[in-house]
């Protein structure tokens, strides 16, 4: 490897003729492109696809596992990769199944979420996640209003007020919005109500919720999405309201704006799916239908 790099350096400057001999018939220029590609695709972002078939199987405790050919998928932390329900297992398996010659981990959002829930690398507890979510309310995008320009002020009022009204009614709380730099003052009762609600979430669902809140930068929008009041596209649009306003004013730049929007949509959709699938139990549902 180092020899080839030195030779490329020499080639660039056309000086000394390197006294070693290369193996017969080696076409250096193709090799250098491969090397460049291999170096660019680092181990953490891309890897060659090393399997043909993806399948799922049920292991002990009724948990589902993902099989890549004969091998069982493991988490980055080395644990066996298990998911609590079949639909999520199928969705994760599909993420692995649609990969082409190289594995693009940055497109496998459900897998990433499962890995986070299974490994819990930052050792978060449910209490910590609930407190963090409630704290986020103080800087919620929906509650932070600008004072100018008037077009944006009106847009925020028209688009965000309905969502605020919805959540205040749905949970019987007061949140309000503010133009001050301190943000809105969230009453303790409001936080308590949400805390009670979040206590019913299991660890996996909280992991997903935390992810969605981080993406949308809003607890209100996250609840709107999880409670199925908003679609993913709507939630993302509301989250990016100011960007959309600027785009309307100044024009769209595909490789920034669309790129960001699609990435945000993909991640948010994955997070929402993750929360929904982690909180439902299809086994229980089937039993109820049979009775």
């Amino acid at each position, binding site marked *: 490897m180092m020899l080839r790099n030195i030779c490329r350096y020499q*080639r660039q400057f056309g000086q000394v003729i390197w006294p070693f001999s290369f193996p017969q018939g080696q076409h250096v220029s193709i090799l250098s492109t491969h090397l460049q590609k291999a170096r660019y*695709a680092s181990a953490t972002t891309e890897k060659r696809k090393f399997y043909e078939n993806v399948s799922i199987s049920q292991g002990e405790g009724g948990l589902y596992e993902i099989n890549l050919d004969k091998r069982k998928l493991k988490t980055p932390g080395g644990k066996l990769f298990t998911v609590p329900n079949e639909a999520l297992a199928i969705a994760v398996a599909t993420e692995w199944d649609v990969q082409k010659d190289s594995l693009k981990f940055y497109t496998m959002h459900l897998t990433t979420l499962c890995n986070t829930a299974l490994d819990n690398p930052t050792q978060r507890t449910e209490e910590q996640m609930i407190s963090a979510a409630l704290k986020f309310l103080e800087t919620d995008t929906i509650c932070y209003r600008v004072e100018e320009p008037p077009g944006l002020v009106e847009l925020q009022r028209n688009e965000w007020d309905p969502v605020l009204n919805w959540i205040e009614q749905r949970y019987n709380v007061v949140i309000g919005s503010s133009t001050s730099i301190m943000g809105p003052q969230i009453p303790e009762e409001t936080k308590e109500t949400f805390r009670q609600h979040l206590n019913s979430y299991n660890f996996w669902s909280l992991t997903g919720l935390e992810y969605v809140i981080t993406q949308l930068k809003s607890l209100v929008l996250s609840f709107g999405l999880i409670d199925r009041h908003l679609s*993913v596209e709507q939630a993302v649009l509301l989250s990016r309201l100011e960007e959309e306003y600027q785009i309307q004013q100044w024009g769209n730049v595909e490789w920034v704006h669309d790129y960001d929007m699609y990435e945000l949509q993909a991640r948010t959709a994955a997070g929402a799916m993750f929360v*929904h699938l982690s909180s439902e139990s299809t086994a229980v549902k089937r039993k109820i239908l049979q009775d």
Partner: protein
Amino acid sequence: MAAVTSPLRACRGILKELRIAKGSDYRNTLVYKHVLEQFRRNQFCRARMDALHAARTYLCLLTSTRMHLRLHERYHGRGDRALEEVAGLVGLRLPTQPGGKGWET
């Protein structure tokens, strides 16, 4: 993209994404069978709106991932340029050595 408000549209959208992602083999996948089963089962059930929201969410996931990847490849995926291209940027060309490079046999 047209508003995906009906279950039929959502289902069709998901199947189309699967076909794009997997090619002609898409009907043999687990996810295809699962999706069809879910759509058949939830025809008359109370949780129909829930199922529709789930379908639209999955469709959004598939489409957005594909579009994001496409833009990524188009704008961010090129990596290093080839040596000839780099030289060409400043108007230079690599020297040709008709006798072959000294170390090649």
